[in-house]
């Protein structure tokens, strides 16, 4: 996703500069096309969210946000992210430790499996848990008999969110820790540190920005996930309705100010994520994984 900004190559001699550059009209045309496309497809929708949200004034905007159902949706979204992101953080660090610091057969298969949730439709990400825990799922009868509800309840939403954010931290840390090798850890161990000390004092400081980067991206996805959560949620207002699902409910009720007010909060989250992500790439780019694909 990220690209390292490279120092420009030594500027070519003026004579060849003309030969390997484009004429001014072509350059301007390409810039206009590129920026026009981004303006039309990226900037305009973003602007539309805020304008629609504020179309009846700031008072209506705040009133739309300050309803019990909206506040419940915000609380649920924060709760789900607060569970899902740390789970995948712990998994990501441990998986990256095993994969990046040791050689073993089947390593690339394991990496492929970790990437799997990214190539699965969000709807399928929710569907798989319904097939396991739904009323007609594999464990459905047992769950019903023991009065445990996962689907159409918060645990299902958390599970689906963990699934869709599963690869973020691991796929950021694995290439980073592979680049860093094991020499520093070996030095720490030979100087008498134990395994935990080595991890906390040597490995963790080396990967902290990469870790933050992965957490940032998985948090954005966790709070914004729609498809997977929609399948397992049951859309019970005030109980199993996350912010993205609440946008849909309000929109379908023709409560456009309300829908776009909630959407504007999510858009703000996306903007903050983008700013922090750019800051991390710009300030600590050399401490992030160079190849992320």
């Amino acid at each position, binding site marked *: *996703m990220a*690209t390292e900004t*490279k120092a420009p*190559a030594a500027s070519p001699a003026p004579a*060849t500069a003309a*030969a*390997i550059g484009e004429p001014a009209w072509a350059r301007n045309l*390409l*810039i206009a096309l*590129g*920026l026009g*496309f*981004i303006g039309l*497809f*990226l900037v*305009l929708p*973003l602007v*539309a*969210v805020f304008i*629609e949200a504020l179309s009846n004034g700031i008072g209506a905007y705040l009133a739309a946000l300050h309803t019990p159902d909206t506040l419940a949706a915000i609380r649920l979204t924060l709760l789900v992210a607060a569970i899902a992101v740390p789970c995948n953080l712990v*998994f990501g660090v*441990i*998986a990256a430790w*095993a*994969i990046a*610091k040791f050689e073993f057969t089947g390593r690339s298969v394991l990496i492929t*499996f970790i990437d799997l949730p990214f*190539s*699965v*439709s*969000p*709807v*399928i990400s929710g*569907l798989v848990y*319904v*097939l*396991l825990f739904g009323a*007609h*799922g594999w464990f459905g009868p047992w769950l019903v008999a023991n009065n445990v509800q996962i689907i159409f309840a918060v645990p299902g939403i958390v599970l689906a969110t963990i699934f869709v954010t599963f690869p973020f931290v691991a796929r950021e840390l694995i290439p980073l820790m592979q680049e860093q090798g094991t020499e520093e850890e*070996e030095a720490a*161990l030979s100087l008498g540190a134990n*395994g935990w000390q080595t991890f906390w004092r040597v490995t963790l400081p080396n990967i902290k920005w990469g870790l933050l980067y992965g957490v940032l991206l998985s948090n*954005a996805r966790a*709070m*914004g*996930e*729609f*498809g997977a959560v*929609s*399948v397992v949620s049951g859309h019970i207002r005030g109980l199993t309705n996350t912010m*993205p*699902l609440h*946008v*849909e409910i309000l929109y379908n009720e023709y409560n456009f100010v309300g829908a*776009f007010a909630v959407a504007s909060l*999510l*858009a703000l989250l*996306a903007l903050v994520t*983008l700013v922090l*992500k750019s800051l991390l790439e710009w300030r600590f780019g050399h401490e992030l994984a160079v190849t992320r694909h």
Partner: protein
Amino acid sequence: MRVFARFLPRRAPSVLPGFGPALGFALAYLSIIVLMPLAALVLRPAELGFSGFVAVVTQPRVLAALRLSFGASLIAAAINAVFGMIVAWVLVRYSFPGKRLVDALVDLPFALPTAVAGVALTALYAPNGWIGRLLQPLGIEVAFTPLGVVVALVFIGLPFVVRTVQPVLQDLDREVEEAAASLGASRWQTIVRVILPAILPALLTGFALALARGVGEYGSVIFIAGNMPLVSEIAPLLIVIKLEQYDYAGAAAVGVAMLSISFVMLLILNLLQRWHRGH
């Protein structure tokens, strides 16, 4: 044997601790969260039998949905391949005010929740929206038609192309272009015969990634599509509808059909990358 052994890489067992527990935990977590649920998906349609599975995925409504999901993703990925390449080119080669901002904005579709994109695009392209109002006199309807699906998928897919082409363009050795120019090639010839072949594998990778994402996309599409059966109903929505009717096996069958498409595309993607490395 001893002579050969000297040339084999010596792989001393690592002195770092914790391999066993770390790998064990990672495998257990992976199995519970990802592998077991996906196994349920793949095994569920088995109760339909093979003929039952074929019957489900060849229902006219399912076929129409798969065709729309696949066709609209293909068109959107093609649009993104063209404009994504232009955006990547402009970002790498030219300088203009606000370039850094534009570069960061390219990732917006990764960060913006899909439902937000969906309602925003619908507001823009609805007959009374900012863009819809301009298109209506021309007889072009976007919202609530298959065209709307394409628009949503263009939004979702753009960063995949830009972010795969951009680093390759950045690493391109400009001396090769100078050499082509000094040998008498026009700028157009250099672009078509030198630069384009160099970025083509990355472009195809970005195209395939955008395509794969588009086939599964749900949140941004369902608002703008109108969701008319046989016309503007996408495959993921059909899964949701089948689930609402408690037709678990049917929903899983559509899911398996979609995953198979994604798998084939990932396979092609892999082959392309291998082919690229071979050159």
